[in-house]
């Protein structure tokens, strides 16, 4: 019954008729490489109309050709462009080229207009970043990172010091759908979460939805992070790259057939292992440490794009990345490796100017292996998730102010959970365990995007999803609706409601993003998670330079998963038994003031939020408790100052009130039953996560010097992370001193004192990076 109003709304809005002016159609491309640009804002001042380009850069906007009109094209990271269409013009099919933005006064004037476009847009709870924004902000050791840049936006929290995991509006890290060119990626982290798997050199754009999720996205309950890589240049050979303190990257792009087919390949690798080799060779590191652990990661991106005909385009995307950590000792070796591999084939077909089809076939895999050797025995512990899928998305534009999308999606998952293999090198002892469930997920959706009189914009849709394993079938209906209303030229209000369902879950008890975290499917014991989110907000254009945004949200989270009290997680063969299920609530308010023009640009984002979880059997008597990422206040201040074309300075300041943790508050001697003469000291734990960590704050800064030469452009970025050397908490641990007996040995049953100590990870940390392109 609840669904009927939504379906009715979708159906009712389909036949709505718009005005019957002439349409201006065309394509928007990058001026340097002719690649089409998606989501370019197009605005007609005289008609008070606006639209966006699709994934092929195409657009259509109604205009009145009885008068001369100005059309403005704006895109984040590119110079905006305005064109004049004179009255009576017959050629209403255009190709527009936009140039990449370089910080000058001129382009600043142009970006003023894009603020107005943002005011009119219907998006609620979304953030978009361009490659330039990601690259120019200060970062740990100079390694720019898209996920870390998102953490500077309101409502998006980091997990812990330096960690790329995102906690969005009360959700956990596994509740984010992370897509690379439309393919899900299951562990978007390198280096235990200090860097993401996304090489900034190949990124075109990144969009994050916190609310108002379009119907074509599903499978996670908290957010969607849609990251797109750029196609190669199909006009000439180009190269770009960089060398930093811990990694280097190189990207080469070239046309295989000019103006028709292009290829982009890019690789990135850390060189910490080479450096540790130099240290070992040149310094005496003492007998206690036999060898510095060997660590490296790499990733490799590949994109082939071919314009098969005027109506057909083919894309082949590939990504593979892996981390490898190794320590070798005389009798004990540890080798941990983990990584993702992705591939996709995408075919875009245009049936008519108003009907497009995108077909995608994809493959995505994440696995980790923990190899141990102790003397003659090998222990292999690992897990894997493998997803093969296909989807079709049909886009139809019946009229200039309406866009209808329908699509289907099918995925097959193969899990390999908690693999444990033990064998003797002589081959006599062999043992293996673990579960290998295979499941299928399917979905279909319909969405309708409609504008009425350029003031009222409504996006409605519904998604049907299902999940099938050997013994169970789960189905869900997910209504989505969002609307915006432009009150006047400076003020708009927006609202959205969405339901999301999640059928696969990642289990972790560390709070860190460890590769040993395991993906687990819904089954007879584990119901799918789902969330309902309501959000409202308003945008206010303060003046030509400042845009103020305010959003309020409430999200209910159902069928949430926690580990039971007193469970052992690692290498457990039956994880189902370790879980307990309950629900959660997240609510908060986000304020965002942004300045995108002038020599000084940046933003201030503030979030006031509360998250709680409860009704878990066996936890705190079913009462509500805060999860670790329940952060009440979160503030980010980001500022960039362009002195001129060559010099710019950027700085970020972040503050977060302390996350929660769980520590013992009391202790007692346990005397136990007769027959055993010991009295160990037992820690007493109160309710979960009742202790707040100290507040987190940090200031980073970087300065960029650009060089424009005949052979190409290059830049040097010098930065400092944690400028005032704040010792922020990474984690806390219990430190107990024991009584030393007459033989000099610790008596573990006679503690002298216990304390709680903090590990801080990054002190003041300088960075340096050199980037080039030609």
């Amino acid at each position, binding site marked *: 019954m609840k669904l009927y109003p939504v379906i009715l709304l979708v159906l009712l809005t389909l036949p709505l008729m718009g005005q019957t002016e002439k349409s201006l159609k065309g394509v928007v491309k990058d001026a340097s490489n002719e690649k089409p640009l998606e989501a370019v804002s197009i605005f007609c001042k005289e008609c008070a109309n606006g639209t966006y380009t699709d994934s092929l850069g195409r657009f259509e906007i109604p205009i009145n050709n009885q008068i001369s009109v100005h059309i403005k094209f704006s895109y984040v990271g590119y110079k905006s462009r305005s064109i004049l269409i004179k009255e009576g013009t017959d050629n209403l099919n255009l190709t527009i080229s936009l140039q990449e933005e370089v910080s000058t006064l001129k382009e600043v004037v142009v970006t003023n207009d894009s603020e107005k476009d943002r005011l009119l847009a219907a998006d609620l709870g979304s953030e978009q970043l361009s490659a330039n924004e990601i690259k120019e902000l200060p970062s740990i*050791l100079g390694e720019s990172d898209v996920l870390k840049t998102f953490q500077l936006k309101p409502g998006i929290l980091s997990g812990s010091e330096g960690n790329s995991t995102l906690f969005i509006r009360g959700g956990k890290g596994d509740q984010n759908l992370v897509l690379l060119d439309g393919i899900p990626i299951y562990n978007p982290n390198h280096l235990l979460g200090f860097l993401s798997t996304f090489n900034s050199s190949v990124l075109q754009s990144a969009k994050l939805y916190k609310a108002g999720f379009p119907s074509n996205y599903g499978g996670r309950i908290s957010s969607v992070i849609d990251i797109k890589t750029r196609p190669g240049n199909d006009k000439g050979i180009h190269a770009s790259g960089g060398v930093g*303190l811990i990694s280097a990257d190189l990207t080469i792009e070239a046309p295989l057939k000019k103006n028709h087919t292009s290829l982009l390949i890019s690789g990135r690798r850390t060189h910490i292992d080479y*450096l540790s080799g130099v*240290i070992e060779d040149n310094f005496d590191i003492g007998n206690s440490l036999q060898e510095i652990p060997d660590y490296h990661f790499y990733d490799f991106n590949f994109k082939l794009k071919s314009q098969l005909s005027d109506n057909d385009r083919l894309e082949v995307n590939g990504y593979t990345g892996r981390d490898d950590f190794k320590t070798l000792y005389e009798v004990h070796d540890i080798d941990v490796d983990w990584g993702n591999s992705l591939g996709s084939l995408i075919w875009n077909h245009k049936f008519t100017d108003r009907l497009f089809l995108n077909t995608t076939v994809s493959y995505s895999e994440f696995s980790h292996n923990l190899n141990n050797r102790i003397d003659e025995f090998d222990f292999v512990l690992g897990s894997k998730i493998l997803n093969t899928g296909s989807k079709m998305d049909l886009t139809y534009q019946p009229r200039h102010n309406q866009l209808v999308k329908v699509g289907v999606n099918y995925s097959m998952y193969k899990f390999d959970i908690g693999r444990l293999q033990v064998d003797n090198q002589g081959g006599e002892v062999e043992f293996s365990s673990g579960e290998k469930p295979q499941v299928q997920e399917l979905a279909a959706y319909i969405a309708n995007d409609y504008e009425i009189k350029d003031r009222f914009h409504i996006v409605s849709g519904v998604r049907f999803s299902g999940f099938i394993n050997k013994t169970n079938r789960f189905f869900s209906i997910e209504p989505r609706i969002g609307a915006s209303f432009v009150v006047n030229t400076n003020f708009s209000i927006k609202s959205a409601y969405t339901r999301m369902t999640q059928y696969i879950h990642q289990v972790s*008890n560390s709070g860190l993003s460890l590769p040993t975290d395991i993906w687990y499917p819904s089954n007879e014991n584990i119901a799918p998670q789902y969330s309902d989110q309501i959000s409202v907000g308003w945008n206010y254009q303060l003046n030509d330079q400042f845009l103020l945004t305010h959003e309020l949200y409430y999200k209910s989270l159902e069928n949430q998963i926690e580990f*039971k*009290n*007193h*469970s*052992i*997680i690692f290498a457990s063969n039956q994880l189902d038994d370790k879980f307990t299920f309950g629900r959660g609530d997240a609510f908060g308010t986000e304020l965002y003031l942004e300045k995108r023009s002038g020599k000084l640009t940046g933003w201030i984002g503030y979030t006031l939020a509360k998250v709680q979880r409860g009704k878990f059997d066996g*936890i705190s008597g079913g009462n509500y408790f805060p999860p670790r990422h329940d952060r009440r206040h979160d503030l980010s201040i980001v500022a960039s100052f362009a002195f001129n074309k060559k010099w710019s300075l950027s700085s970020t300041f972040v503050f977060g009130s302390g996350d929660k943790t769980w*520590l*013992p*508050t*009391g*202790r*007692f*001697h*346990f*005397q*136990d*039953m*007769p*027959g*055993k*003469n010991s009295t160990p000291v*037992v*820690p*007493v*734990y*109160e*309710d979960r996560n009742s*202790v*707040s*960590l*100290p507040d987190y704050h940090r200031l980073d800064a970087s300065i960029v010097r650009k060089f424009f030469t005949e052979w190409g452009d290059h830049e040097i970025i010098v930065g400092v992370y944690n400028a005032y050397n704040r*010792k922020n*908490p990474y984690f*806390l*641990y*219990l430190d107990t001193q024991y*009584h030393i007996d007459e033989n000099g040995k610790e008596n573990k049953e006679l*503690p*002298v*004192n*216990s*304390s*709680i*100590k*903090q*590990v*801080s*990870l*990054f*002190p*003041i*940390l*300088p*960075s340096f990076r050199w980037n080039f392109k030609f």
Partner: protein
Amino acid sequence: MRFIFRIIFIPICFFGISCEPGDGALIDLPELKTKYVVESYLMPGESPRFLITHTDGFIKDYDINSQDNDISTEMVEGVVGALYINGESHEVVNKHLEYEGKFYNYQVSGVDSLGQNDVLELELTFPTGEKVYSKSRVPELIEIDSIAFNKSENRYGDVLYITFDKPETQYVRRILLRVRGKYTQLIQDLPVSGSLSNNGKMVFGSEMDFRRGDTVISRIYSINKEYYDYYNSIFMNLQSNTNPFVQPGQISGNIVGSDKVVGIFTAMQMADSLVVVK
């Protein structure tokens, strides 16, 4: 080359230094709510006795002068109450006792022995006004079926067989001790649920821990579920101090009536065997 080495090496050194743990805790622990802890294990053939203590703040320094298993500083006096055996009331008296190396501060007089399936109830009132209640039953004794020894070269391993003979789940705690000269060492201490048995049969085995002349003490305590859960919660909280993959939790006891009182009031039976390895 030297320049490049410096710009790479210096930040890595910063990174290395930074990974050292910081100073003592900077955090504020929530205000400690002192709790009372009741420990009571009642066995047929023994008069009932109790230990009632209180908790301390986790990071409070220990009294080094009373480190020798002396928990007298934590004992709580002034508790009044009654033990009901099959409905018959017996007063709980505040009286100290040291028995087999254990300390007790409450006893029940006039009760010499308990019988199988006796129903036991406990009512206590604390000096600060808390009133609590608990109930237990003397479980049926699970006997040791047989004990054997494996031999490998000059070493021996203990193998013990038991049978669970009830349709409902039974619980036992297996304790294996080795007496060598004047030293007694705990070899195994396992609480086990009968649900893990194979058609009611269960086998416990040890490593080759024994040699000729050792005295092997094998004990099987028949316990109730409340004690099985309590012991596991204690054990896991102890483990969680050192193992990051163990979830801690609240102590699971069977004392009800006040969240200021935790602990266990349970009955059990013991079957044991003493063998000298020859």
